[in-house]
């Protein structure tokens, strides 16, 4: 490999030594720069892990929100129900029926002789007469008529008047055994009806 070189060197030297010198090729040692693998792997794995963890967190978060939404919805509906319950209570309290009953309890009656005062001159228009108890009206609803089964006619049992001798004999008997006897007999009467 090295033997022909001196010859050519001599010849060329004559022509343009400097140029030849410059153009001379030589084998250089292969430059093997080993790029460090670690940062790249780290980056990729970081990206991967971040992606997976992010997705997971995003999903979990969404699930959490969904739970929270369900909870809040339930709470909202509970509160709505409560509000409506209270509203109903309020309506009941301000119902004219209740107010009228309450007013009547305080002895109030509707004014049946309206009169007006003119604010400009204090003149009274109309004929003011104090209200009286006669102006009251029937606020309470009539009592419901009970069906016959719940409101039976009274059962009248006729008992023969005892003679003086019998009464005395009974009194004697009762003195011995006390009240219990008489109460059981009266209960017996009730159940047979």
């Amino acid at each position, binding site marked *: 490999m090295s033997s022909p070189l001196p010859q050519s060197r001599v010849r060329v030297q004559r022509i343009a030594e400097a140029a030849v010198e410059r153009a001379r090729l030589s084998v250089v040692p292969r430059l093997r720069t080993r790029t460090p693998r670690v940062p790249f792997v780290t980056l990729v794995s970081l990206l991967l892990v971040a992606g997976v963890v992010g997705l997971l967190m995003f999903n979990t978060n*969404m699930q959490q929100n*969904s739970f929270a*939404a369900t909870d809040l919805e339930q709470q909202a509906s509970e509160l709505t129900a409560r509000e409506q319950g209270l509203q109903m209570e309020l309506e009941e309290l301000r119902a*004219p029926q209740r107010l009228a009953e309450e007013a009547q309890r305080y002895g109030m009656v509707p004014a*049946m*002789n309206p009169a007006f005062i003119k604010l400009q001159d204090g003149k009274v228009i109309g004929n003011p007469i104090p209200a009286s108890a006669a102006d009251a009206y029937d606020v309470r609803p009539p009592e419901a008529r009970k069906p016959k089964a719940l409101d039976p006619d009274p059962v009248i049992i006729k008992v023969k008047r005892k003679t003086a001798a019998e009464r005395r004999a009974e009194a004697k008997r009762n003195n011995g055994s006390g009240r219990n006897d008489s109460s059981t007999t009266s209960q017996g009467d009730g159940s047979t009806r």
Partner: protein
Amino acid sequence: MSLRPQTTRAPARGSALFRLRFGFVVIAMVLSAFGARLLQLQGIDPHAYAAMAAREGVQTVDLPAARGAIVDRNGVELASTVDGLRIIADPQMTEENAGPIASYLSQELGIDYFATLGRLRKDDTRYQYIARRVPSTKARRVVDALEEKGYKGLTTERDPMRDYPADDIAANLIGFLGEDEALAGFERTFDKQLSGVDGETTYEVGGGNRIPLGTNNTVKPVDGQDLQLTIERDVQFFTQRVLREAVRGAKADSGTAIAMNVETGEILADADYPSYNANEPLESPKRNLGSRATSDPYEPGSVEKVLTFASLIDAGKITPRTPITVPPVLESQGAPIHDHWDHETIHLTAAGALSKSSNIGTALSARQFTPEQLHAYLTAFGLGQRTNIGVRGESGGRLPDPSTWGQLGQDNIAFGQGLSVNAVQMAAAVNTIANGGIHVDPNIIKGSAVTDDGTKVGTSTSTTRRVVSEDAARQTSEMMELVTDPVDGIAPTSAITGYRVAGKTGTAQRVGKECACYDGTFTVSFGGFAPADAPRFTVYVVIQNPRNGQGGGAAAGPVFRKVMTYLLRKYGVAPTGTSPTTLPVEW
């Protein structure tokens, strides 16, 4: 190094080809198995599998439209929808503890113990209604309490319920709902407007929670619209209570009272008795659930004389001072007509004939009309035609054809017998006099609404027409003032101290249901308005079949006075301060 692969390459190449073919065959077999399965899933019965998948995790929930409220003229709710819940049992879980659960439920909710027990033990089902339309706070409390005791298997579902906060106030008009449909009154007539359109939503669930990115289809519900009435709740309440007192006091069958705004024809109160509690409609007999004010026609009696006299004055036939010689009995086609009191021949003015309610005087005056003329006037007053205010089951009453009247018929109709009216019609007719001779269509719906038979009703569709001249109306009103005169009038109990009140009593013979003849019972009524010289309100009261012998003045007059006083006070109408009429009664 390089020689070894060369020696092994030849046999390997052949086996590779073999392996490739073998691999293809395997893949083809697997793929065709997939294909077959695909065909089975998608080609043969796709819907069953789709449904199965849906059942697994997709939930469809109805979104019930909120039903519109029925409100009074000030927006106070007379009927409203509140959140209710239905309680559902899963019998497979409740079966073993059915006894204690049923006894607790029947105690708390007032439901039948044995029916509940049966439902809690039912076989082959996992869904049983236990109670419907329970107020939600109550339902939750009950279900939670049972869960705490260790009894599982009860759940709740949404079930909106209708509440009538004022119980029986205007119940006859408003009506009520059944389990799933509107059954009576405005609830039914305007159901389309009130109910709205239900929506529904479909979504995937997992573990009781909605899956965030799952399928989700929602059709939003369209809520129903409110219905506003011209009724004023407090006036309605007072009218109903006063009417009830009067009907019960007179031991009568039923009664109706109507209060109207003179100028607009808006009905402020339309009371019926007997009424019912709209929250418990089943507790009352069916005959009490409708509105008698429009559904029960009756013969109006003497209140109708007002219309006859107004017509006569308008036609120029009489004036309030026209002298009439009233004989003790008037012969009419062979039948005698009497007055409600015995008298010799008396000399009444037209005003006297009206204020003393003389049948003979009225009939004699009305003989100046042909039947057609009187018929035309009465028709213009609105008699014989339905008012179409939007209340269900209205009967228009009956005004016979004039060709069939004859002398007796005309005489009778002149003082209010032989024709029938409903109370709203009659109130509107009397209101015509109050409104200076202009008839305003009565109204009970504010704005406008469409009934279930397609009729448009409401204040915005209201029309007016002139029936008699303003002068005739004023003169009639003056004649009516004599009725409530505290000294000479026949209905002093209707007078309101300090005010000029125009009114007219009526006592009519009633036609019995069975015999279709006058059966000796009466309809008493009172119609009038105040202040007489600048009317603001018309009140008309009818009481059917009083059994204590009272006439219109005594039975219905006090109701008129109380309701009218209430209205004048509530709306701050001061007395006009003018001096009352001085029309002569006799000559």
